[in-house]
């Protein structure tokens, strides 16, 4: 690599460590970091600085009520009030998702006849639905509700088979320059891309498998944002919804 290019990329390391590097510069630096030991060492130095910035603030105590609110979320406070509700909600969500997917499959077949030109994309949608239906037949599949304003649906999650799928209603249409991007959320809030998709034309819902090279159990949630066509390294656009596992 030319010295000048190395110097230019090296200048971006402080901003990268702060999370302030613009999206278009991130990829080039990350590729460079894979092969440049001195830049990796420098990044470690600047990460030390950004870690310190987390602590460079005088402590501030919240109101005492916050501790009580937190305690009310712990299992011992909920045993008397919520277990039955949680159980029944989960079963209801599963049943609702089954009914929903059954109706959606019928709808897909009707669309296939009428929309010959879109046969390929509808077939893909159907496959996604079937994958989701197959997931529902597994006893270990969890159905987590999506609720964000007008947008609703279900996250199907099978940790044993390391698979997941989204069934989302009322997703707004996007311009040609935009795409929806799925993010799996790690425990430290880092996001890992799990695929791009666009709403199926003329269908009110979208079924989309979630792709992950890692174990789904490594993640604590899932979200969808609007990103530029081709996707982003990290979320940059508005969040459509987020669901905790």
């Amino acid at each position, binding site marked *: 690599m030319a010295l000048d290019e190395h110097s230019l990329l090296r*200048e971006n390391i*402080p*901003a990268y*460590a*702060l*999370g*302030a*590097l*613009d*999206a278009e510069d991130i990829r080039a630096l990350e590729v460079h970091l894979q092969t440049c030991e001195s830049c990796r060492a420098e990044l470690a*130095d*600047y990460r*030390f*600085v*950004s*870690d*310190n*910035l*987390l*602590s*460079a*603030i*005088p*402590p*501030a*105590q*919240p*109101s005492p009520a*916050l*501790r009580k*609110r*937190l*305690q009310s*979320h*712990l*299992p*011992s406070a909920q045993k008397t009030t919520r277990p039955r509700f949680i159980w029944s909600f989960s079963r209801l969500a599963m049943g609702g998702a089954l009914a929903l997917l059954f109706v959606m499959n019928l709808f897909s077949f009707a669309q296939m006849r009428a929309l010959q030109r879109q046969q390929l994309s509808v077939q893909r949608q159907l496959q996604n639905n079937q994958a989701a239906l197959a997931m529902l037949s597994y006893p270990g599949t969890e159905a987590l509700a999506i609720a964000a304003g007008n947008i609703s649906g279900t996250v199907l999650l099978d940790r044993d088979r390391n698979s997941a799928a989204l069934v989302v209603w009322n997703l707004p249409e996007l311009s040609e320059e935009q795409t929806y991007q799925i993010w799996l959320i790690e*425990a*430290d*809030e*880092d996001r890992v891309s799990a695929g791009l998709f666009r709403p199926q034309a003329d269908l009110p819902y979208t079924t989309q498998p979630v792709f992950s090279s890692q174990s789904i159990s*490594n993640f*604590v949630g899932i979200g969808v944002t609007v990103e530029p066509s081709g996707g982003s390294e990290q979320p940059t656009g508005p*969040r459509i919804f987020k669901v*905790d596992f």
Partner: protein
Amino acid sequence: MTTPDDVELVTRVANGEERAFLMLYDRHVGRVHALTLRILNNPMLAEEATQDTFLKLWGRARLYLNERGPLLLWLLTIARRTALDRLRLEARRPMLSDANDPEDSWDLIPDLNTLPEESRWRSLYFAVQSLQPDHRQVIDLAYYQGMSQSEIAEVLGWPLGTVKSRLRAAMEHLREKWNEE
């Protein structure tokens, strides 16, 4: 009886022990809340972000890896991301009046009743305070408001190259300062 350290407590939290969780809350809530308040600049939203951070600790304690750093750093990283997510959700980009006067941004004067465990944040705090005002400003917008360099240039009306050079200079200053310690 010795006081359990963070690693022992987080292991107990992972096993569902609520008392250990509340001990960690009492130990670290001041630092976590200071950060969420610094980012959100709103006591009510900051308390919600602080609550979310500790609920994530409760739900994810088994995922904490001691070899990747101290628990407090992990908690603060989660708190920062949680607060920045909330900031984005609220579409509350900082007003110029908040961001343009760096002196106002760092006007909290620490309690002079210095305790031994406070020496670290105090030294970090004063290192940041020793930055030139315009350098402190870009650090503030980048790290505590989650802005990219282009967004900072737009908000402040500075050329992008100026933002980049000031951010680099500020980070270099802090690196030298903190490496001396």
